[in-house]
């Protein structure tokens, strides 16, 4: 049985396929990529959260307490827990990617990628400790 063949000017028509809209579900690594990209939503959300907190602090004691109470509401808490997980995922994927973009040279020798990666994680630890110290220290 033959369905109708089609021809262009010079040769039989080539078969062209378009990727499906759900291409990112076809492989685990594609899904991991889309989740990594999706982490940016939580980066954006947390900026909004920070700004709301600054506003609460600036407006006075009552406003600050109101903010803290709002942050304990189940929906907000759930969103922030998910944000925390995605932000950690973002940090890990970013620090694993950064050494591949940064070709650091000492003289003519290239610093090994592992060293660049480890320094990122070390900086992350230092920055986090600094945040804890500033916020929690009296």
């Amino acid at each position, binding site marked *: 049985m*033959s369905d109708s*063949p089609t021809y262009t000017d010079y040769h039989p*028509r*080539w078969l062209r396929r378009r990727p499906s809209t759900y291409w990112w579900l076809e*492989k685990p*690594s594609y899904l991991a*990529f889309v989740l990594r990209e999706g982490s940016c939503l939580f980066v954006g959300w947390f900026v909004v959260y920070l700004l709301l907190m600054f506003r609460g602090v600036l407006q006075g004691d009552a406003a600050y307490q109101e903010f803290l109470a709002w942050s304990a509401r189940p929906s907000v808490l759930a969103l922030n827990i998910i944000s925390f997980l995605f932000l950690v995922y973002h940090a890990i994927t970013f620090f694993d990617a950064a050494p591949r*973009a940064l070709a650091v040279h000492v003289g003519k020798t*290239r610093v090994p990628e592992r060293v660049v990666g480890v320094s990122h994680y070390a900086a992350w630890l230092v920055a986090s400790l600094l945040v804890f110290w500033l916020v929690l220290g009296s």
Partner: protein
Amino acid sequence: MRDHIKVQVARYLPEKQSEQTFDEHEIPCPKDWVVLDGLNYIKDRIDGSLSFRWSCRMGICGSCGMTVNGEPKLTCATFLAEYAPGPIRIEPLRNFPIIRDLIVDIGDFMRKLVSVKPWIVRKYEKPLRDGEYIQTPQELDEFKQFSMCINCMLCYAACPVYGLDPKFIGPAAIALAQRYNLDNRDEGAAQRMEVLSEHAGMWGCTFVGECTKVCPKHVDPAGAIQRYKLTGAIESMKAFFMPRGA
């Protein structure tokens, strides 16, 4: 039966059909056979009309790239026994137009490759009497990894950006541009930057990283592209602030 394997092979015969179909065969599966051996068995003994590309059968020519169970692979480097009893599904390389059966048109890649000038570009060639261009082993190491590319196009098949936007110049072209940009004998970085600083050049890449995963020669095109983005960004800043040249 571990010594036989079911194989599903994509067929597209444009003079007879307008859609892709699948043929199923059961073929022997000795433990040292690769997928390419299986395809040649089918062509020799079962169906001589099956069309596919292959050449060196040892992973250096880059001709035999196909989609095996959804993954882009070199069929000369993929063992059949790993998929026994099957079914193993063999399709043409993704993201390229299919000419016939397992053969795709690679013209798009070829044009893009030429556009990045993958050769040593120099303002003045040294005359022979002045001797050779000196390159230390360290200078070689800078770009050696990117020179391993065999133009097999598995990276293009894996890249979702190339699938969604065929104008994207693609991983191998950028990696090969970098191979020459980082070569101390080359002076053509600015010419390549002209092509690669377009939207469809390096800036189309969103660092999915699939290209590096599927590369059979461990070229790491994703790494090459990210490094080039940093270079490109710095060059753009220079061009903006010092338009008459630094």
